[in-house]
């Protein structure tokens, strides 16, 4: 559900293949702690679009860019999801996740920067290992 007071919606374009709001992580953008319990994702000036009226089919997409840092920390609580009909298996743990970001929409002179990462919160987060599709056996 999109909130009624939403003024922006930032994401990468859907790829021609249908791949949904997914972009490659450049070298050095993803760091995993030696114990595997912390994942840090940092990317700068990622080309995205602003589609305030998403998911309306005629929602205009305005070029924008996003810089962000996201950190997952495992809580250690085990999680296991499997769905044979959809051919996936995930084994991992619950996690805490926090985000800081800034976005720019140059054509309309808009920019926005979040407060420090410690002030954000995600109600749901998991991290672990997954197999799906041809790797699901």
């Amino acid at each position: 559900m999109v909130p009624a007071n939403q003024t922006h919606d930032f994401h990468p374009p859907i790829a021609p293949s249908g791949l949904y709001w997914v972009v490659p992580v450049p070298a050095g953008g993803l760091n995993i702690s030696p114990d595997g319990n912390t994942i840090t994702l940092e990317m700068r000036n990622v080309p995205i679009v602003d589609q305030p009226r998403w998911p309306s089919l005629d929602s205009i997409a305005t070029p924008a860019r996003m810089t962000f840092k996201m950190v997952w920390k495992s809580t250690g609580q085990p999680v296991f999801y499997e769905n044979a009909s959809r051919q996936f298996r995930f084994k991992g743990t619950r996690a805490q996740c926090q985000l800081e970001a800034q976005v720019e929409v140059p054509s309309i002179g808009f920019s926005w920067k979040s407060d420090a990462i410690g002030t954000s919160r995600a109600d749901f987060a998991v991290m672990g290992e997954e197999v799906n599709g041809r790797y699901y056996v």
Partner: protein
Amino acid sequence: MTSVPGSCPLCNRRRFLKSFAWAATAFVAGERSSGQQAAGETANGGTEPYPIPWLDKNGSHNQPAGPDLEPSHIYHFKGRVARCSTFTGMGTDNNGNRIAFGSPTTDYGVMQGDYWAARTTQHGAFTHI
């Protein structure tokens, strides 16, 4: 009935087959030029990952985040994944306005490992943002 020297049903059929073979050759040549396939290259498809096949309520290959839902946005995938959703936070725009971010569908994910594309195993890291 007028007889045409050299004409017979078999001859006509052979002429047709020759024409067909020529047409097929032309068709293949046309395919190559429109596909921009350069000499010496393979034609195994791109190395971009496949999306998850299932569609969400909006008709997209999107995977909502949550308990018992698939964390990856890449199909034919094997590796590390992290997922989160329902973000809340605050920020400030360039005019000094305080604007909140996040909603129940504000979700992110990262996938690192092997995936299948171009008819073989690829390796990479991707994020859903």
